[in-house]
């Protein structure tokens, strides 16, 4: 006796994979966002350090 798939389970499968792949994607995106934020802060740190360095080089008046 062959059984036909009822449409209801298809919806649930789609929902399941949305959760799984969506969850993975969200986490991946969060990592990318955090890396970007870090790069921005590193650049700002570079500028601050350059400022500090040039300030130390100036002769004291």
């Amino acid at each position, binding site marked *: 006796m062959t*059984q036909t*798939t*009822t449409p*209801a*389970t*298809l919806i*649930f*499968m789609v*929902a*399941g*994979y949305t*959760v*799984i792949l969506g*969850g*993975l994607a969200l*986490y*991946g995106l969060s*990592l990318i966002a*955090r*890396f970007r934020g*870090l790069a921005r*802060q*590193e650049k700002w*740190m570079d500028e*601050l*350090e350059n400022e*500090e360095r040039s300030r130390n080089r100036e002769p004291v008046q």
Partner: protein
Amino acid sequence: MIRERASATRMALTLVAALLLLAALGLVFGYAPREAVMGEVQRVFYFHVSSAWVGMLSFVVAAVTGGLYLSRRERYWDLVQISSVEIGMVFGLIAILSGSIWARPVWNTWWTWDPRLVTTSVMELVYAAYLLLRQGIEEPERRARFGAVYAIVGVITVPITFLSIRFLRTIHPVVIGSGDASALGGFAMTPKMLETFLFSLLTFTVLYATLLVYRVRLALRGDMLEARRNALFSG
């Protein structure tokens, strides 16, 4: 030069992970047969169990790095631990949610007291407790030490919890909701299904490794930035 080589390795790993994921999806939807009784929703099983597997693997890795930290006191192991916990929580949550979605059409309930599902939830709670513990401590050294201790306690107690619940279910087979302990494995696995399943496990393991590598790198760079900040503002 070393930095470039590391970056190339990371990119290669990412590529491999992406390809494996695409291949796994292909197998799940193209190669594995449609299950007779449950229909299409059974396909969720492949990634659902693989996610749970990664959740548990992360848990073990967290405990092992805990032991390594306590014996060597190297900050690196603490960073790997927090990375593994974070990733494990994500995969654990995915496993629980996808399990719930799978259960709904099959057993007409959003939740089953299946020992594996319950244990995964307990593990997730231990993860959350771990994070709350770390949040409440300010000194980085103590935070690392306590995290290590709790991760070790967790990895020992959670399997015992699983055994207790499993034993409980074998002597109380009739329960409100889904039923017996073998319910969530309650379909016959044909060879094609088994191959798809094993491939999914492999894919998710590589995915875990890739995410771990990146997350640890994020933590390391964050640490270096913090050191630079301290050097700048204390001088």
